[in-house]
């Protein structure tokens, strides 16, 4: 059975497919000049929402079903890793290290019922590049290269209009893989309010950011039919 070939070597363990993919993703972005960043899973409301121009009592908050923490007011399980991006650029700004580009893959949480395509925990790839003249065209170049690396050279990428509070313009990225258009995630140019909130001057810098489904890529790429298989602790998953 070819899919278990790695286990022929009894001395070596098998790796989780998401780790295999994470390595590929990081490598691809590092090659394009991005720095890997990590951040907390238990995040303040400030970094998860307010910094990202998602105000309290705005319907935009309904776009993500959030886990709030009991007895720890103003804390959430991060709903996206865009919080990590925000922290990284805030730091880079303070240290005078712009232009800069950061990439992170991290676990995120959504309070919703699970099924074959929905999990309460999953991973997101979040990346951003900020500089003087970074544009939508740059984002298109970076993401097209990325998806070709991940899913093959015949993949097509499309940008469609959307809305996210933290980006303006906001764009949804779709990829055509094996004849089917798939929604990969949100992206856009960082909203000036976000830049200001992390101490950058929107008159001087601009940049793109994206937050895409990570599990989704693994599922599409390798034909894993149910997202829940990824978190069962079942070694039969480790075939890649």
């Amino acid at each position, binding site marked *: 059975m070819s*899919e278990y070939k790695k286990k022929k070597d009894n001395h070596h363990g098998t790796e989780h497919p998401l780790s295999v993919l994470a390595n590929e993703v990081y490598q691809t972005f590092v090659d394009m000049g991005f720095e890997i960043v990590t951040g907390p899973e238990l995040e303040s409301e400030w970094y998860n929402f307010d910094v990202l121009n998602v105000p309290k*009592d705005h319907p935009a908050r309904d776009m993500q079903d959030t*886990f709030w923490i009991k007895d720890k007011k103003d804390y959430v399980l991060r709903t996206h890793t865009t919080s990590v991006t925000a922290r990284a650029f805030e730091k880079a700004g303070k240290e005078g290290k712009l232009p800069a580009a950061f990439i992170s893959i991290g676990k995120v949480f959504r*309070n919703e019922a699970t099924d074959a395509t929905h999990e309460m925990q999953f991973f997101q790839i979040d990346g951003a590049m900020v500089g003087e003249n970074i544009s*939508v065209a740059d984002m*298109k170049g970076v993401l097209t290269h990325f998806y070709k690396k991940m899913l093959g050279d015949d993949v097509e990428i499309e940008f469609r*209009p959307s809305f996210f509070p933290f980006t303006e313009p906001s764009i949804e990225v779709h990829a055509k893989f094996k004849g089917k258009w798939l929604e990969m995630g949100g992206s856009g140019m960082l909203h000036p309010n976000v830049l200001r909130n992390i101490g950058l001057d929107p008159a001087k810098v601009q940049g793109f950011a994206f937050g895409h489904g990570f599990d989704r890529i693994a599922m599409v790429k390798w034909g894993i039919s149910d997202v829940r298989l990824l978190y069962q*602790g079942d*070694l039969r998953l480790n075939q890649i």
Partner: protein
Amino acid sequence: MKISYNWLKWYIPEAPKAEKLADIVTYHLAEVESMEKKGDDTIFDINILPNRAHDLLSHQGVAREIASLLDIKYIDPTPKYKIPESKSTKLIKTIESPKCRRYMGRVIRNIKIGPSPDWVKNHLESIGQRSINNIVDATNIVMYDCGQPAHVFDLSKVKNLKLTVRNAKKGEKITLLGGVEKTLDETMMVISDDLGNALDIAGIKGGNYAELTKDTKDIILECANFNPVSVRKTAQALNIFTDARKRFENDLSPERAAYGMQELSALIFEMCPEAIFEDVVDVYPEKQKVRKLSFSVDRISSILGLKVSEKEIEEILKRYLLKYELKKGVFEIIVPPMRLDLAIEEDMAEEIGRILGYDKVKGNIPKINFKPKVNETYAKISWARNKLLADGYSEVMTYTFRDKGEVEVMQSASDKKFLRTNLTDGLKESIKLNQLNAPFLGIEKVKVFEIGTAFKKGGEEMHVAFGDKKNVTEVSLNDFCKDMPKDFSLEPRSSNLEAKFKMWSLFPFIARDIAVFVSENVKSAEVSKIIKENMGDMVIKGPELFDEFKKDGKISYAFRLVFQSYERTLTDTEVNEIMNKITDKIKAKGLAGEVVNN
């Protein structure tokens, strides 16, 4: 929002065919989530997001947008909205709460409650709404047509023709249309009559006190505007979802109320030609300001990474009927009152980008002057992972949510409300599960690890846990990586991009071993070949040679076979038959003196 193609066509008769229109909407406006044929109509479900909820939660809004996008004719229905000359009114409206931004009312007498005309029924039913009666239907048509929520009270119930928008009293109760009772507090806003009866939760849902009956003759129309945050907080607290709430909480231009009143009045006149209209009472303390927005051609081009010309922008502004001035590469437009989403230069970059189409933007991989550092946490994770893999541990990821712990989430779609304090508990479950599958996995001993976050009262920490059924060790990532070399760097590695995952069968498997004692010169491959030829198509793993030893000029080969079906549970009997067949064949070949299968 559900949008009827036929309804749109009233305003844009030149609209392209439904399929083409869905594509145009998807690539230039918003996601079309579904498209459904319904008789001679097509119903689109368009995902209108908060930035365009101000103007696109309406058929007119969507039609105007498409007309401008495609530069086709928009038939403005407004000149048709006519009513007989209105009479003076005694209606008094007072706004006591600053959260009401506009309140318009009109008395109409001598109406007749009855069924709606067919076109009204068709319109409503096409988008999944039920026809109730002519007057209620008229308010719904107005909301789905122009976006303004409207409400009607039975005039005979409104004491002294006085309506007040006020904050509710703590503990005040209201019975809503449909009969559900809600208890209010002073942060909430109601419409009340002169006796203080609450008639309506402002902007959210009407009460049953002044509900229309079949005998209602005189009515009061309401078209109002409320503060979005106030509506949202109240509706959230009371757990009420209505179309009115959705529109108000996303913020609606108070200017729309006047349009809604005009359309609603005209509709009622069409349905009740005998109706007598009184003047509109309009309380509008602070008129919405006219806003101007400037943007430069260069800045738009710089954001999009696409050279956009003045001419292209002018052409778009004209199609969208936007008044503008152009001075030295800088446009100044007057923002239409409904377009609350247009506030900054970047908003115009989005407008121009999406109208032109993002396919016009050509990709480019930028080179920036930035020296990335090695991320210490990720380096540690990689080092730990490589070390454990090399030590024969396999990686798993288990759930963060557990049924006990130190950090709890407030509400959850699941019954596991706590965050894990350790990885060990999950790992032990994983070991148990994998132990059952050990023959399938072809491993002697299950050894697993996980690298992940554990949550304690004091905060979160990245842990590493590894072990087998006897023992699981868990330490912090930092402790685990004490011996990591300082200069550790991530090696590029290449994985098999062509790999494919094969789902396992959900039916139980049966593992069997067969030991063959043969003369020394017989190769294991010969035995294996006979097994393969006779094992049938239910073997998902094997024959795998797991043991061999020599004794007295003879050699013993032990093979393992794992049987499993993707369609059913296999029985011992049928597997026994196969094993016996294999045994017989091996014996028949004269290879072995002794065969043991179990």
